[in-house]
């Protein structure tokens, strides 16, 4: 009988770096690291050489200098004397405004279209299929430009609203659609308005407390309290009562035609509307597909099982299908939000001053600080994406199927 023994311990030889799997990975990583460092070094030395030849340097001094250009949509105080830093912040806020508006609208559109596409009404489901395919297969830039040209070229100018027999008129006396943008009423916050707002916030809390209590009662005793109407009541009644008790502290300022233009109200520019609607409709088409896929992913047996337990169709949807479908729908939904935010950088095509338009556009062109400006721009988008992916990971871990 031969006995198996460990082979004698080999001493380390240089060829083992290539032929022994234990060491080979170190060799590869070492080579990769050298290549990477060499490549970065090459880029940096090139950049240093080029900058020296051009007499430039890398510095962020320009952020403190006065910008000298105007931005037409200002969420915070800004004028042409403000710094480039402030211009960038205005741009960031504008990006966030259009991203939030777009995400909310896209979700509504997408969920409605996705559910309707599954409807057994032939004409409705076909219409929704046409919507989804038409918008998914055409670049969003084209949609942004189309809506922008509708807003600027097809709508009447403010002068069309003037005179005894105007060719255009305001909708409900409150909304004016002009080629300079849409004018909407602006809320006026008078004395006591804070109390109304606080009441509203409290009633939101109260509504959730009521729903929690009702669910707990259901689980503990089996008694079913009505859910929908009490919720609506708790949400709106106290606020309305408070609003009228305090003598309507929140008013509306309507836009009015004065001179050559509309005064008062809020002016929503055509560029914002084009970007907002195009992004919302485009992303909505993708969300519709996600919603449809999520609902179809739940097997029919679930619906049948719920029905055989005696649940009504409404409850089947709310208690059985949706909780499972959401697990499938939400991760792609969040990545669609991310896409929408990144696509909002197309603002530069219609002159909406988002962060790409201020920091990556006018600031870059005025100061010539290309490397610095683009680096900051990328950093901003990177921060947003990484933040959203972090949120998504937390969510995914929370709803992950817990199997043993």
């Amino acid at each position, binding site marked *: 009988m031969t006995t198996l023994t460990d082979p004698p311990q080999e001493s380390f030889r240089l060829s083992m770096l290539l032929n022994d799997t234990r060491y080979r*990975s170190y060799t*590869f*990583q070492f080579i*990769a*690291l050298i290549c*990477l460092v060499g490549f970065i070094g090459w*880029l940096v030395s*090139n*950049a240093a*050489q*080029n*900058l020296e*030849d051009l007499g430039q340097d890398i510095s962020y001094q320009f952020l403190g200098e006065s910008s000298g250009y105007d931005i037409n949509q200002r969420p915070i105080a800004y004028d042409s004397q403000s710094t480039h830093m402030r211009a960038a912040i205005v741009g960031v806020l504008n990006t966030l405004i259009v991203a939030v508006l777009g995400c909310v609208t896209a979700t509504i559109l997408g969920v409605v279209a996705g559910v309707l596409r599954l*409807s*057994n*009404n*032939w*004409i*409705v489901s076909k*219409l929704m299929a046409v919507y989804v*395919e*038409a918008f*998914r*297969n*055409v*670049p*969003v*830039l*084209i*949609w942004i*430009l*189309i809506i922008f*040209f509708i807003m600027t*070229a097809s709508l009447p100018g403010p002068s069309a609203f003037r005179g005894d027999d105007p060719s255009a008129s305001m909708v409900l006396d409150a909304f004016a659609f002009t080629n300079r943008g849409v004018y909407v009423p602006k809320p006026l916050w008078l004395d006591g308005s804070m109390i109304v707002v606080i009441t509203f916030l409290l009633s939101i809390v109260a509504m959730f407390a009521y729903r929690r209590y009702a669910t707990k009662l259901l689980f503990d005793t089996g008694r079913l309290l009505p859910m929908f109407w009490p919720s609506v009541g708790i949400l709106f009644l106290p606020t309305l009562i408070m609003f009228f008790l305090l003598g309507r502290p929140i008013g509306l300022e309507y836009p009015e035609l004065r001179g050559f233009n509309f005064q008062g109200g809020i002016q929503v520019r055509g560029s914002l509307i084009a970007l907002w609607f195009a992004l919302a409709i485009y992303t909505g088409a993708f969300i519709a597909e996600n919603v449809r896929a999520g609902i179809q992913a739940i097997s029919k047996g679930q619906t049948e099982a719920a029905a055989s337990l005696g649940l009504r169709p409404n409850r089947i949807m709310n208690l059985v299908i949706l909780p499972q479908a959401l697990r499938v729908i939400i991760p792609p939904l969040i990545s669609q939000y991310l896409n929408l935010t*990144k*696509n909002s*950088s*197309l603002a*530069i*095509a219609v002159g909406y001053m988002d962060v*790409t338009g201020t920091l*990556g556009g006018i600031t*870059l062109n005025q100061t010539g600080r*290309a*490397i610095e400006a*683009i680096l900051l*721009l*990328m950093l901003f*988008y*990177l921060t947003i*994406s*990484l933040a959203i992916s972090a949120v998504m990971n937390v969510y995914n871990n929370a709803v992950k199927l817990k199997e043993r």
Partner: protein
Amino acid sequence: MSDKPAHNVAFVRETTLPPSPPPVAETGAIKWMRENLFSSAFNSIMTILGVLAVYQILSLALPWLLNGVWNASSIRDCREILDGATGGCFAVLTERWHQLVFGRYPQDSYWRPTLAFLLMFAAFAPVLFSNLPKKMLIFTGLYPFIAYYLVWGGSVLVPILSLVGFAVGYVVYTRLVDRSFATGFFGGVAAAIAVWYIGGFIINEDSTFLALEQVESRDIGGFMLNLILGVVCLSVSLPLGIVLALGRQSRMPIIKWICVVFIEFIRGVPLITLLFVANVVLAYFLPPGTNFDLILRVMIMITMFAAAYIAEVIRGGLAALPRGQYEAGDSLGLDYSQSMRLIILPQALKISIPGIVNVAVGLFKDTTLVSVISMFDLVGMVRGPILASTDWNGVYWELFGFAALLFFVFCYGISQYSQWLERQLQTDHR
């Protein structure tokens, strides 16, 4: 009761009745309408609303389409011909189609990109449809060089030499790959570079041999530019994406982190910022004095962008494979490159097809973004030279409608192909 003789019963039917037709409401079109359009009050309302919406859209679009003017020299002519009636001014398409499709490409050479476009179908056919003869793949291999020669022109020696370089590299690779994959790969690369280096001298000697008229990259535009960018960037980014995906799955921490950082960085920033990099920043990072085409810089950036997305799709495919497949490869005694090439990737790529097609469609649509950095692709042509000209200032719907239609045809075609391919590749039993 049953004992009673039969003759006491008043009437007994002796033959079977033929089946009577179903009620009118349960057959044909009426049944279909009842089930699909008017099954409930809510559904009926939706149907009526849907019909109204369709009617609204058609009543606006049909007169505009049917009453369109196809022959006019400017928008004023169009308005004169229409004389107040509704109608599109499609004359802009008939007059400016060459700009929309070819950009500023020399007019007498339109046959070159057209031929390259037609040959593209022959080149892609064996890749897309696996039942075609495998010999056709040879043409697919030759196609990039033919297409480059046709579109950009110049001496025929340039594409031939680069082809020779690839061929020599491939021969060296097949010789050495038996020893190990790495030896073969790096040997092949070294041989190819040597051939190109020597070939450079030959081209400098005689650069007019069988030369087609050289076309500057900045003259390439219109829809052709979108197609070129889409096809080139996608073809290059596919292998790059596979390498990145494998790198991200690797057990070697440094390689893994290089890939992770690259992928997450590219996916985290919008394509526009990368195009800005191509336009204004990239030149800083190249050796002083180098100056290459904007179109090439843009291609590099879009390729990196697409590669990062494709890598994530393929990573999903790799993760979806059961561990047993990896272990099977190991237990057969295959090394890493063999088990990847022969066992893992064929399956992982099959799973990833829908995702890859999504990326492809998205990438093709994203090629329109180059208009933002003032390249004249289809959208750039519409926004720039055509809408800015005094003749056609104000023809929005016709131009953007045409652009949207072109993209729709291509993107919808690609997605239909991918659905067909998924059905073809379905090997599981159901």
